[in-house]
Protein backbone atom coordinates (compact mmCIF):
# COMPACT_ATOMS: atom_id res chain seq x y z
CA UNK A 1 0.00 0.00 0.00
CA UNK A 2 1.65 3.21 -1.18
CA UNK A 3 2.10 6.30 0.95
CA UNK A 4 -0.01 8.31 -1.52
CA UNK A 5 -2.90 5.84 -1.10
CA UNK A 6 -2.62 5.89 2.70
CA UNK A 7 -2.49 9.69 2.71
CA UNK A 8 -5.56 9.89 0.45
CA UNK A 9 -7.51 7.46 2.62
CA UNK A 10 -6.61 9.46 5.75
CA UNK A 11 -7.78 12.67 4.06
CA UNK A 12 -10.97 10.91 2.96
CA UNK A 13 -11.65 9.68 6.49
CA UNK A 14 -10.98 13.15 7.94
CA UNK A 15 -13.25 14.83 5.37
CA UNK A 16 -16.11 12.40 6.06
CA UNK A 17 -15.70 12.91 9.82
CA UNK A 18 -15.63 16.72 9.48
CA UNK A 19 -18.69 16.75 7.22
CA UNK A 20 -20.39 14.45 9.74
CA UNK A 21 -19.59 16.94 12.50
CA UNK A 22 -20.97 19.80 10.39
CA UNK A 23 -24.13 17.82 9.61
CA UNK A 24 -24.50 17.03 13.32
CA UNK A 25 -24.32 20.77 14.10
CA UNK A 26 -26.74 21.76 11.35
CA UNK A 27 -29.32 18.98 11.10
CA UNK A 28 -32.08 17.48 13.15
CA UNK A 29 -32.79 14.25 11.31
CA UNK A 30 -32.98 15.36 7.68
CA UNK A 31 -34.13 18.92 8.43
CA UNK A 32 -31.77 21.88 8.77
CA UNK A 33 -32.27 23.41 12.20
CA UNK A 34 -33.15 27.10 12.44
CA UNK A 35 -30.13 28.78 14.06
CA UNK A 36 -28.84 32.28 14.73
CA UNK A 37 -26.24 33.55 12.23
CA UNK A 38 -23.60 33.52 14.97
CA UNK A 39 -24.10 29.79 15.58
CA UNK A 40 -23.97 29.00 11.86
CA UNK A 41 -20.80 31.08 11.51
CA UNK A 42 -19.28 29.21 14.48
CA UNK A 43 -20.14 25.84 12.91
CA UNK A 44 -18.66 26.93 9.58
CA UNK A 45 -15.47 28.29 11.16
CA UNK A 46 -15.11 25.10 13.20
CA UNK A 47 -15.28 23.10 9.97
CA UNK A 48 -12.63 25.29 8.32
CA UNK A 49 -10.29 25.07 11.34
CA UNK A 50 -10.77 21.30 11.71
CA UNK A 51 -10.14 20.84 8.00
CA UNK A 52 -6.92 22.89 8.08
CA UNK A 53 -5.68 21.08 11.21
CA UNK A 54 -6.49 17.63 9.77
CA UNK A 55 -4.85 18.33 6.41
CA UNK A 56 -1.77 19.89 8.07
CA UNK A 57 -1.41 16.89 10.38
CA UNK A 58 -1.79 14.42 7.47
CA UNK A 59 0.68 16.39 5.33
CA UNK A 60 3.16 16.46 8.22
CA UNK A 61 2.82 12.72 8.79
CA UNK A 62 3.22 12.05 5.06
CA UNK A 63 6.28 14.31 4.92
CA UNK A 64 7.97 12.43 7.77
CA UNK A 65 7.16 9.07 6.14
CA UNK A 66 8.42 10.32 2.76
CA UNK A 67 11.73 11.48 4.24
CA UNK A 68 12.13 8.14 6.03
CA UNK A 69 11.40 6.14 2.87
CA UNK A 70 13.48 8.38 0.58
CA UNK A 71 13.11 8.56 -3.18
CA UNK A 72 11.14 10.97 -5.34
CA UNK A 73 8.14 12.51 -3.55
CA UNK A 74 6.06 13.22 -6.64
CA UNK A 75 6.32 12.61 -10.36
CA UNK A 76 4.30 13.08 -13.55
CA UNK A 77 1.82 10.31 -12.66
CA UNK A 78 0.95 12.05 -9.37
CA UNK A 79 0.43 15.30 -11.26
CA UNK A 80 -1.78 13.52 -13.82
CA UNK A 81 -3.84 11.86 -11.06
CA UNK A 82 -4.25 15.18 -9.24
CA UNK A 83 -5.35 16.86 -12.48
CA UNK A 84 -7.91 14.15 -13.25
CA UNK A 85 -9.27 14.22 -9.70
CA UNK A 86 -9.44 18.03 -9.88
CA UNK A 87 -11.52 17.82 -13.07
CA UNK A 88 -13.97 15.47 -11.33
CA UNK A 89 -14.15 17.82 -8.34
CA UNK A 90 -14.88 20.81 -10.59
CA UNK A 91 -17.59 18.85 -12.37
CA UNK A 92 -19.31 17.85 -9.13
CA UNK A 93 -19.18 21.39 -7.69
CA UNK A 94 -20.45 22.82 -10.99
CA UNK A 95 -23.30 20.30 -11.09
CA UNK A 96 -24.17 20.90 -7.43
CA UNK A 97 -24.32 24.69 -7.76
CA UNK A 98 -26.33 24.41 -10.98
CA UNK A 99 -28.81 22.07 -9.29
CA UNK A 100 -29.24 24.57 -6.43
CA UNK A 101 -29.74 27.45 -8.90
CA UNK A 102 -32.27 25.49 -10.96
CA UNK A 103 -34.00 24.35 -7.79
CA UNK A 104 -34.32 27.95 -6.58
CA UNK A 105 -35.79 29.09 -9.91
CA UNK A 106 -38.16 26.15 -10.31
CA UNK A 107 -39.21 26.36 -6.66
CA UNK A 108 -40.31 29.96 -7.27
CA UNK A 109 -42.02 29.10 -10.55
CA UNK A 110 -43.84 25.93 -9.41
CA UNK A 111 -44.60 26.45 -5.74
CA UNK A 112 -46.83 23.39 -5.48
CA UNK A 113 -44.38 20.79 -6.78
CA UNK A 114 -44.01 17.42 -5.07
CA UNK A 115 -40.20 17.17 -5.20
CA UNK A 116 -38.12 17.36 -1.98
CA UNK A 117 -37.86 20.99 -0.91
CA UNK A 118 -34.64 22.89 -0.25
CA UNK A 119 -35.62 26.24 1.21
CA UNK A 120 -32.75 28.37 -0.02
CA UNK A 121 -34.31 31.50 1.49
CA UNK A 122 -33.53 29.93 4.89
CA UNK A 123 -29.93 30.99 5.67
CA UNK A 124 -28.82 27.83 7.57
CA UNK A 125 -30.22 25.65 4.75
CA UNK A 126 -28.38 27.71 2.12
CA UNK A 127 -25.11 27.46 4.09
CA UNK A 128 -25.57 23.73 4.63
CA UNK A 129 -26.34 23.15 0.94
CA UNK A 130 -23.33 25.15 -0.30
CA UNK A 131 -20.87 23.61 2.19
CA UNK A 132 -22.22 20.15 1.32
CA UNK A 133 -21.63 20.83 -2.38
CA UNK A 134 -18.03 21.80 -1.57
CA UNK A 135 -17.62 18.63 0.48
CA UNK A 136 -19.16 16.53 -2.29
CA UNK A 137 -16.57 17.91 -4.69
CA UNK A 138 -13.75 17.31 -2.22
CA UNK A 139 -14.90 13.75 -1.46
CA UNK A 140 -15.16 13.05 -5.19
CA UNK A 141 -11.60 14.28 -5.72
CA UNK A 142 -10.30 12.09 -2.90
CA UNK A 143 -12.29 9.05 -4.09
CA UNK A 144 -10.93 9.35 -7.64
CA UNK A 145 -7.42 9.82 -6.23
CA UNK A 146 -7.80 6.74 -4.00
CA UNK A 147 -9.09 4.67 -6.93
CA UNK A 148 -6.08 5.63 -9.05
CA UNK A 149 -3.63 4.84 -6.21
CA UNK A 150 -5.37 1.69 -4.98
CA UNK A 151 -3.03 -1.30 -4.65
Amino acid sequence: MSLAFQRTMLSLGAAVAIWGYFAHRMLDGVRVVDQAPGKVLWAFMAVVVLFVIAEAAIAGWAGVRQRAEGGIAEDERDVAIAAEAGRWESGVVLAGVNILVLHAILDAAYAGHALPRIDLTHMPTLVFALVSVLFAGHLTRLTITALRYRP
Partner: protein
Amino acid sequence: MPVVQPARAKGRVMPRIRELRGAAGITQQELADAALATRQTIIAIEAGKYAPSLELAFRIARALGAPFEAVFGFDPDAD
Protein backbone atom coordinates in the same frame (compact mmCIF):
# COMPACT_ATOMS: atom_id res chain seq x y z
CA MET B 1 -24.73 10.44 -48.71
CA PRO B 2 -22.77 7.80 -46.79
CA VAL B 3 -21.46 8.78 -43.41
CA VAL B 4 -17.70 8.31 -43.17
CA GLN B 5 -16.67 7.10 -39.73
CA PRO B 6 -13.24 8.30 -38.58
CA ALA B 7 -10.78 5.47 -38.06
CA ARG B 8 -10.50 4.53 -34.38
CA ALA B 9 -6.95 4.77 -33.17
CA LYS B 10 -5.58 1.38 -32.22
CA GLY B 11 -2.34 0.31 -30.66
CA ARG B 12 -0.83 -0.14 -27.26
CA VAL B 13 2.60 0.45 -25.77
CA MET B 14 4.02 -2.83 -24.46
CA PRO B 15 6.69 -2.06 -21.86
CA ARG B 16 9.37 -4.68 -21.29
CA ILE B 17 10.76 -3.00 -18.22
CA ARG B 18 10.26 -5.96 -15.89
CA GLU B 19 12.31 -8.37 -18.03
CA LEU B 20 15.11 -5.86 -18.65
CA ARG B 21 15.14 -4.77 -15.02
CA GLY B 22 15.36 -8.40 -13.89
CA ALA B 23 18.16 -9.12 -16.34
CA ALA B 24 20.07 -6.06 -15.13
CA GLY B 25 19.48 -6.91 -11.47
CA ILE B 26 17.91 -3.55 -10.72
CA THR B 27 15.13 -3.13 -8.17
CA GLN B 28 12.03 -1.06 -8.85
CA GLN B 29 13.20 1.54 -6.33
CA GLU B 30 16.63 1.82 -7.95
CA LEU B 31 15.06 2.25 -11.38
CA ALA B 32 12.61 4.81 -9.98
CA ASP B 33 15.44 6.81 -8.42
CA ALA B 34 17.49 6.69 -11.64
CA ALA B 35 14.51 7.73 -13.78
CA LEU B 36 13.36 10.45 -11.33
CA ALA B 37 10.02 8.73 -10.76
CA THR B 38 8.28 7.11 -7.82
CA ARG B 39 8.33 3.35 -7.30
CA GLN B 40 4.53 3.34 -7.69
CA THR B 41 4.89 4.81 -11.17
CA ILE B 42 7.37 2.10 -12.17
CA ILE B 43 4.96 -0.53 -10.80
CA ALA B 44 2.07 1.03 -12.76
CA ILE B 45 4.10 1.17 -15.99
CA GLU B 46 5.25 -2.44 -15.60
CA ALA B 47 1.65 -3.50 -15.03
CA GLY B 48 0.53 -1.59 -18.13
CA LYS B 49 -1.71 0.67 -16.03
CA TYR B 50 0.12 3.88 -16.85
CA ALA B 51 1.63 5.12 -20.10
CA PRO B 52 4.62 7.34 -19.29
CA SER B 53 5.46 10.59 -21.03
CA LEU B 54 8.19 10.47 -23.67
CA GLU B 55 10.59 12.18 -21.27
CA LEU B 56 10.06 9.58 -18.54
CA ALA B 57 10.14 6.74 -21.06
CA PHE B 58 13.53 7.93 -22.32
CA ARG B 59 14.82 8.30 -18.76
CA ILE B 60 13.73 4.72 -17.99
CA ALA B 61 15.39 3.39 -21.15
CA ARG B 62 18.57 5.29 -20.31
CA ALA B 63 18.50 4.01 -16.71
CA LEU B 64 18.17 0.44 -18.01
CA GLY B 65 20.98 1.04 -20.52
CA ALA B 66 18.82 -0.23 -23.35
CA PRO B 67 17.59 1.30 -26.62
CA PHE B 68 14.16 2.93 -26.40
CA GLU B 69 12.55 0.42 -28.80
CA ALA B 70 13.85 -2.47 -26.69
CA VAL B 71 12.15 -1.09 -23.58
CA PHE B 72 8.89 0.11 -25.11
CA GLY B 73 7.44 -2.07 -27.84
CA PHE B 74 4.31 -1.12 -29.71
CA ASP B 75 1.51 -3.43 -30.79
CA PRO B 76 -0.34 -1.52 -33.55
CA ASP B 77 -3.30 -3.93 -33.57
CA ALA B 78 -4.05 -3.98 -29.84
CA ASP B 79 -7.21 -2.17 -28.67
